[in-house]
């Protein structure tokens, strides 16, 4: 069982929902990332999604686009991101790490070389936004070979006919995109998400994570009642943006406060489930 699967099943056994924060690696500067990851864990993260900067993030909204631009000003590469993970693992061997990004930096490295490097530094799963299950050429096989989980997005527009491929090629959990749009859009419709999750649940053999558009405690509270994991990205990254030129301490403080809000909301939802 992978570290992601273990973490999610342990939480499920306790009736808990995972909180999964996203930050872009190297944002606002390379030496901040490892410290911020530890801070996220301290403030209640169960897993971390680490964005790999790419020059053309076509599925991301303005907040994450700017984060990627800040990281690329420092020429943060995929190799650098793997180095941050290695450094993080010196003190934390428990918290699963998922790399989220686009295919081209991985193509440049080579599928097998990337998979083996990622696995050896302690990455647990990979979400490649522009690599659907149908297009593989050995990519998912390479990830599978070294035990890296393959996380796929499922969106409100995903037809029934494609769910089988996601279920078959995916592992760890399924990432349900809670709205039509890019990351950080802000029209979350909880009733619609509930209907969709219900549609998916009996077709998927994996836990369901929910992300895109979860901006505050109220959103997180609603989503925690529907999914096994709640993923928050732009809400945190916009705080990094606001404090980009401040000391690391200030950034940690801002992120920590927001994380506390999310964690409390999710715990509140979990307590509700237990009462039921």
């Amino acid at each position, binding site marked *: 069982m992978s570290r992601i699967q273990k973490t999610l099943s342990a939480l499920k056994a306790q009736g808990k929902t995972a909180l999964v924060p996203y930050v872009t690696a190297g944002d606002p500067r390379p030496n901040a990332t490892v410290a911020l990851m530890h801070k996220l864990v301290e403030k209640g993260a169960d897993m971390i999604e680490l964005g790999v900067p790419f020059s053309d993030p*076509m599925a991301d909204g303005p907040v994450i686009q700017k984060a990627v631009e800040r990281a690329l000003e420092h020429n943060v590469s995929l190799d650098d991101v793997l180095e941050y993970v290695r450094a993080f693992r010196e003190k934390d061997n428990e918290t699963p790490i998922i790399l989220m990004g686009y295919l081209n*930096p991985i193509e440049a490295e080579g599928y097998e070389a990337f998979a083996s490097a990622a696995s050896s530094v302690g990455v647990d799963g990979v979400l490649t936004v522009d690599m659907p299950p149908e297009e593989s050429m050995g990519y998912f096989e390479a990830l599978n070979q070294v035990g890296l989980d393959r996380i*796929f997005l499922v969106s409100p527009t995903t*037809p029934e006919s494609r769910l089988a491929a996601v279920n078959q090629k995916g592992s760890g959990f399924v990432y349900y995109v809670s709205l*039509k749009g890019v990351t950080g859009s802000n029209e979350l419709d909880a009733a619609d998400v509930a209907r969709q999750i219900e549609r998916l649940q009996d077709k998927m053999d994996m836990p369901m994570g929910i992300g895109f558009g979860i901006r505050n405690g109220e959103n997180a509270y609603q989503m925690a009642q529907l999914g096994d994991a709640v993923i928050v990205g732009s809400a945190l990254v916009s705080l990094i943006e606001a404090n980009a030129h401040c000391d690391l301490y200030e950034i940690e403080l801002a992120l920590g406060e927001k994380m506390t809000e999310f964690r409390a909301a999710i715990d509140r939802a979990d307590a509700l489930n237990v009462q039921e």
Partner: protein
Amino acid sequence: MTVDFAKFPDEHGHFGPYGGIFAPETLMAALEQLNQEYQSLKNDPAFLNELNDDLRDYVGRPTPLYYAKRWSESLGGAKIYLKREDLNHTGAHKVNNTIGQALLAKRLGKTRIIAETGAGQHGVASATVAARLGLECVVYMGADDVVRQAPNVARMKMLGATVVAVESGTRTLKDALNEAMRDWVTNVDNTFYIIGTAAGPHPYPAMVRDFQAIIGREAREQILEKEGKLPDALVACVGGGSNAIGLFHEFLPDEGVAIYGVEAAGHGIETGEHAAPLCAGKPGVLHGNRTYLMQDEHGQIVGTHSISAGLDYPGVGPEHAWLKDIGRANYVAINDEEALQGFRDLTKYEGIIPALESSHAIAYATKLAPTMSADQIIIVNLSGRGDKDMNTIAQIEGFEF
């Protein structure tokens, strides 16, 4: 060569290792629906009749194949014919494709059209068909391109389109494409994305090629009528590569016809400041397809440079990538200076002001023709007219505009 070109791409959009569907999940269903609709319509007589009527009566096809006698003689060597796509309504080949995709949009019941544009020709062609069908139209254009192609921005606005200046990234065509994709992900229910070049996720490269292939079909018929034989060489400029694949496709099985795609060498391939992924890039994945890209060692897409906004793109259509690898087409590059000279030459000898994009093809023909004999024939795709480039030219030549 034993390749059956009609069989490409395969059903998943692959040209050998290139092409495919590398798209965010939210778009997968829309791409599948588009593909199904396109596959069922592309041989449908009623659809083709409607398309052909529009191309004849609205676009003004067939476009002439013109023997550029004075220019040819000045070069000494092959006879050069120009396929006059500049004479299409809106002034370039782009409208061949937007007419077709707009008919599809209508059939799919979409009420809103989006497009990306570099030089503005595709934006104008999209705004034009949207106006004609009464559809809302939003055009994404790199902020730098908005400045250098101002006349086309004015035309789009006149036609009722909203032009969004894209400030992210390198502020050129690739960033416009990113922003259009983001719009499509968000508004996929009511929106049809008219991609302007033979790139993007399947079925776009095949669909855009099919709509542009009328260029080569006409040219083949016209040259046989005028000269009684096929040409010896074809020359077309390649940014994303839609005008080029449009001319080339009909001739792919004709082994005796040499094919030249001309990329933008910008300040020179050796300077790194160019837009020539086939000549100097390597394969990767961007904007929904695998193809040759300009990228650094870490897989980051690098900024491009070309004097022509329409060629200023770090990728290229996947069919060109494949034609390069199998050796059916040759890809060469022409720098800014050479393209400007081509622009001046055609204007001077033939009274035709070409687009700066097309001027790259003109410039390559000036190199190629003298190496050939007087009984040989070159067809150059004159993909667009140069009115839109007057600001750029006025600055370079130092006259008031």
